[in-house]
């Protein structure tokens, strides 16, 4: 319930503190070729004041700037204490701004490995699933409605 309460505190303005997962430069702009404000060390902390794409706008003792978001971790809910909801920092930044029913039932048991092992084919639900299939046209229509324009993007290789 504590987690649920923290999660639902979305919109509150508690500090969204993050910890550096590795040494990382803080840039003046959200670009890898921008000038550096400072070099942050593994374990350093900062306060998130905004986000843009892959970047977090961070306030640190050494100055404010932009950090590649992959290089930080939000505190886990487990580590959160009291009602500050520190564990929900990621939720406040990236989570939904609405009440949700499921997260308020955290602690209620969902499906687990054993359930999958023991479940048998549900023909009725499969029929239902198949009835919801979208045609190519329906998918394209919805995408246009959301101003989604296809882009040419090559697949990525792992880091060499």
């Amino acid at each position, binding site marked *: 319930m504590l987690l649920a309460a923290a999660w639902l505190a979305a919109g509150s303005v508690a500090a969204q503190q993050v910890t550096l997962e590795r040494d990382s430069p803080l840039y003046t702009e959200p670009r890898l070729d921008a000038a550096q404000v400072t070099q942050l060390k593994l374990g350093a902390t900062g306060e998130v004041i905004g986000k843009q794409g892959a970047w977090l706008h961070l306030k640190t003792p050494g100055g404010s700037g932009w950090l590649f978001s*992959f290089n930080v971790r939000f505190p886990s809910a487990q580590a959160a204490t009291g009602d500050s909801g520190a564990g929900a920092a990621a939720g406040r930044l990236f989570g939904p701004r609405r009440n949700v029913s*499921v997260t308020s039932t*955290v602690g209620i048991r*969902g499906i687990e490995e054993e359930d999958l092992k023991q*479940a048998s*084919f549900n023909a009725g639900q499969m029929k239902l699933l198949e009835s919801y299939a979208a045609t190519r046209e329906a998918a394209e229509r919805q995408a246009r409605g959301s101003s989604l324009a*296809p882009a040419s*993007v090559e697949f*990525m290789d792992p880091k060499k």
Partner: protein
Amino acid sequence: MTGAFRYWIAAAVMIALSAYAAAASLDLGRIFDVGRDLRIAATGLDEKEEIAVGREVAGRTLGAAPLVPDPELQAYVNRVGRWIALQTERPDLPWHFGVLDTASVNAFAAPGGYVLITRGLYEMLASESQLAGVLGHEIGHIVQRHHVKVMQQSAAVSASARAAQHGDRGILVNNLIGTGAEVLARGLDKTAEFEADRIGVVLAARAGYSPYGLVEVLHLLAARSAEDSSLALLFKTHPAPGERLTQLGDALVPRVAMLPAGQEPAIRPVDPRTPPPAAAKPAAAKGARALQQQEEGGSTTSPGGGLFPGGGALRGIFGR
């Protein structure tokens, strides 16, 4: 192949799978057609077989948790998913997407175009671009045929192929059913998960979304307590979200300046009139039938563990 022999295979399969009465919906005799053994070992399942295996696996997952009773939501997720799938080299698979009515946080892919996301995960999402990242990851597993490759790599399948060469088809069939099940159940290695993450980012970007939806979801998950019961299966079977972030970040560094900004449309919420998912009954003692959806008859597990123990060929973003 003779009719009598086909019958024998079908009978053997049904005996092995007596636990799964509904497996009759799938022509397993065709999938494990002895005449195709060598080709499967060499090249994996063909597309029809892949779809049939995936349908069986997805249908069993639906036996563990039904769909959220919100038809508009389900149709919406299908349109989003299909739009992303259209950006792949397998746009015309029979793609099916569903939201499972469980508080667990997870998503699954089964071969041939079946993608299931749990309501627990869906309701964590803040935007359609985050949904696109999750579905893109799952679609990546399917497009890359990760499950089929695992099966191919199996020494068990190779052994079966060798048995076939010596003409002992009875041994072959049993091997394919028994050890083939293990192969399907083994789950993917980290490499495949990291690859699916990279594909998820690219597919979301191709579909016109912000490429970083999946990254945001991984941050959300990394911040969830490992002791949160709704994430139990997720954390048990996958690389930690933090590790995935590191891998994905490293792969993205050279690309980050070139990726389009993309859109972040609002996500359709679950109809607020939909009641919360019922708590799953504990799977309790071995042999207990948990969460069966009006399936009658049959024992619980076959001695060999069945065709798809542990969710079988499910490939999850956070599950298998």
